[in-house]
């Protein structure tokens, strides 16, 4: 068994996250799918970092974490303000721009 197994695991997690974004309707669950994809990317970063013996990969994962934290703050604020105006968090009902 090689270290590439981690990359396979990262691919599986990334796929689950991507399908979640495509299939689910609840905005919060969709958002959690995005978080899962970011985590899968982090796992791949760390695997490559170990493979090459270079700490820069770990640093990239660190920056992904910081950006993810900022993204969650703004995203959840959007969801909260959407819920306040539309009383729903379903992505199907957010069609304000269409009319």
């Amino acid at each position, binding site marked *: *068994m090689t270290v590439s197994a981690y990359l396979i695991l990262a691919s599986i997690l990334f796929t689950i996250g991507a399908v979640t974004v495509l299939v689910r309707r609840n905005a919060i669950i969709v958002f959690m799918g995005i978080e899962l994809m970011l985590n899968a990317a982090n796992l791949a970063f760390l695997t490559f970092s170990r493979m090459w013996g270079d700490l820069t990969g770990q640093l990239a994962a660190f920056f992904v974490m910081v950006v993810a934290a*900022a993204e969650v703050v703004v995203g959840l604020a959007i969801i909260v303000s959407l819920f306040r105006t539309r009383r729903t968090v379903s992505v199907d009902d957010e069609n304000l721009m269409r009319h």
Partner: protein
Amino acid sequence: MSAMTTLAATDPSLVMSVPEQILFWTVGAIVVLAAFALLFSKRAVVTACAIVLVMVGLCFLYFALQAPFLGVAQLVVYTGAIMMLFVFVLMLVGVDISDSFIETIRGQRPLGVLFGLGLLACLGGAVLKSTMPPVQGIPQDPEVSNPSALAEILFSNYAFTLEITGCLLIIAALGAVIMTHRVRLTKRITQGEIAAIRLRDGMRLTPPPAPGNYARHNAADIPALDAGGDVIEDSVPTVLRMRGQVHRLKGVAQDLLPDEVPATRRPDAVPPAGDIPAVAETPQQLAAEAEAQGRKPEAGEGEVKS
């Protein structure tokens, strides 16, 4: 898997040690199973808990990948901050919301799953087909720990990136504040005005009495008793009274029931839940009522919704 075994046969430095394999398979299975909750769980809270499990599992894997600092950061940032924020917002928008599994766009779900399978095939194929370098491993220097080695790169080569990231965090915090800010459309009711309204309308001026609190049942849903052994209705929060969740003493503290008190005056003779004092109608009264209950006026109660 066959490609991986052949690779392992050709290059022994790519191989994971047996303990690491055990860790990988255990944690990997848990993580993938928990991640499937994203696709199949109906309730968002269950999904959030499953994702917390995924994050904790990934923390273990980060340690196995010789990244202890990021493992700890994963635990603190993701499970500690981000997922708790998710759960907080879930509570804010209502825990009871469950996703509907009715397709609104025809064929979207099968297409989504098909896309997922294709993506997995592409990613997996790329990983299995590519030639990986021999694993070098993170250099383990007993003098330099992982966090300080990371810090050395972070504050030298990537110092500018770090500063930009700081800007990003500030902008994000500001953005969240602006996005959730609501412009007040009505005049703010001050404490003095509420007191004046109470005086004018003959409402209660003092805070309501505290609920009865017996050591064996530490809850706010048991009414207090006055000196005569009568139940004080106002001592139970309005929300519990509206829901009919007021507890009778009978079920909680049998021995506390005074025997000599006539049946009509017994503490368990609470009027049914529908028998609630008149509910305030105007916004001012509502705000005053909310104030009297010791909480701040809620959204849309004392003001026009924006």
